[in-house]
């Protein structure tokens, strides 16, 4: 990777990366793919987030679902760890709490495949800055 030498470099890089992030969410298919973020801070990992992430990666692959699974930091819902965020193409992301393997399986079968929501949704209750 080339070095950032000027602010213009950084900005160019940023717009490229934003496009890349977008591509990660879209994949090769025109309608896009599912993006799953697993909260992997200490509290998430302590409640089993690593196992859930491994399960998701393996099962999505086995079930032939085009999805990206990535790690992220603490979403703040410590009472409901492990938490994952699922974004279906073209839809708003949804956060699920208390996700163990069984829940992850249900999320794949119902929400990821058919968009059917399952229990355990954590509504976002904060504003972010853009």
């Amino acid at each position, binding site marked *: 990777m080339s070095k950032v030498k000027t602010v213009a470099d950084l900005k160019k890089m*940023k717009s490229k990366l934003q496009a890349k992030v977008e591509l990660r969410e879209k994949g090769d298919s025109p309608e896009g793919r599912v993006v799953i*973020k697993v909260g992997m801070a200490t509290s998430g990992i302590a409640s089993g987030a690593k196992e859930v992430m491994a399960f998701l990666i393996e099962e999505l692959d086995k079930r032939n679902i085009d999805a990206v699974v990535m790690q992220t*930091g603490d979403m703040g819902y410590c009472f409901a760890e492990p938490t994952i965020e699922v974004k279906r193409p073209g839809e708003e992301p949804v956060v699920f709490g208390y996700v163990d393997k069984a829940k992850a399986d249900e999320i794949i079968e119902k929400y990821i495949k058919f968009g059917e*929501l399952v229990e355990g949704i954590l509504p976002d209750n904060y504003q972010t800055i853009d």
Partner: protein
Amino acid sequence: MQILVCAGTGCQASLSEELLSQLNSEIEANELENDVQAIRTGCFGFCEQGPIIKIMPDNTFYTQVKPQDATEVIQEHIIKGRRVERLLFTDPETKEKIADSRKMGFYKKQMRIALRNCGFIDPDNIDDAIAKDAYEALGKVVTEMSPEEAIETLKKSGLRGRGGGGFSTGLKWEYAFKNRADQKYVVCNADEGDPGAFMDRSILEGDPHTVLEAMAICGYCIGADKGLIYIRAEYPLAIERLKTAIVQAREYGLLGKSIFGTDFSFDIELKYGAGAFVCGEETALIHSMEGERGEPTVKPPFPAESGFMGRPTNVNNVETFASIPPIYLKGADWFAKIGTNRSTGTKVFALAGKVNNVGLVEVPMGITLRDVIFEIGGGIKNGKKFKAIQTGGPSGGCLTEEHLDTPIEFDTLLAVGSMMGSGGMIVLDEDDCMVEVSKYFLDFTVEESCGKCSPCRIGNKRLHELLEHICKGNAEESDLDRLRNMSTVIKESSLCGLGQTSPNPVLSTLDNFMNEYLAHVIDKKCPAGACKELMNYVISETNCVGCTACARVCPVNAISGERKEPHFIDISVCIKCGACMDKCKFDAISIQ
């Protein structure tokens, strides 16, 4: 279509379960099972307006929905596609009905600045961070602003240190800037020693680049080319993520020599602490980094004059740093408008204890304790009664019902006898004994005192002993005066912030819960039923049927009695474990 029904504790208390089953039977009655599902969700954080339902995908938000409203929701909204006006939320200011939950940002009491990227980006991937503006503020500062201008911006933003003291960050940078030296240092305090606090850890684990970027900005402003992060070895994940982030930033040339093509150079190194609370105090922290004993020294000289290796050093907290890049991107005025006049911006709190939604919350300064506990926190667990909230950790105090509407600001919290501290918030309910709570914090300070000065080393030990006597029923009323006097002396004569604040939990509970102390010393009773030595398990002769279940479960055989005859407990043998009470099916055992 989907109907999301809030199943947070607040909404459940206002019949959201019944509402859910009503909705389900309406769905069935209209044979809509294949098209519409009603499901439970977590707390929406708007509990006073509960029960809340949200209809997807059109995002309609209905508040105060009663079970009997189910028919109308299904008939009108779901079947006919018409909104039920009367259930929409009315904006208290404009009196307008608001349907779309996305237009209801104001109900979202949380606002994320320091945590803006936590939970969104992959912390191990600098590209993710850059796509979210990382290092853009640094670029702007080093290419467009002089150090003086950049410091002025920070002063104007009103940002105050989030590590506990609440000192103006801009002023601190200015002192370090004005002190001339051949070498200066930027230090990030990631010691985070308050029991229960984990906001700094979450920031480092979720968004390490923001801290690196802000440290570099600080380096540019004060004239330092070296940054040090003092982090406790007990945070292995945060350390790993920081190491990865530093390597990636160096690869991209965002740390290292001639950053953004200027002659500004900056690099960062990690220093590990062994996890002593006192090493979070800045002078002790600096000594620890130098390889000396982690003990505080008298200020002045302040680190800005003579810090690491005797050079001017600027120490800031992790969350302080994380708040800085957006200030440069969005402007000092933007930041100053958030929060209140004297406490600008947001603060992250680790909400814990007897509250439903335990977790990290970031709120604008000036929000009330009530909002944090009852709206964001979803109220007290198990429908118990709120008793107190402890803020500021071992240096803070316990606030009561009467302080619930106090705005959360550095100065207002100090004025009511607590403090912001680093952001721990522990909610206590009717089952918590306030004497025991202050003893808990004293346990911590006695353990963590470095022992350098006698008021703190010996005084806190004596305070702790007195509290133990009180909890055991061995204290007199006059001991309460001794408790107070000793606290005042410790506060006034200790060397560092640890000793100067350690009696705060005792003083604030003496002020706010005197009755509870009196009950312990005069009546030898613990009103909350928490102090074991002051309570006795008793079997009621009228309720006991003589089933012998209690006698069989008692681990020390303190219970005797004939089968089918009332039993009794020998209190000289009883160890007060409570096993008998848990076992009794006839409510015959109580605490007195």
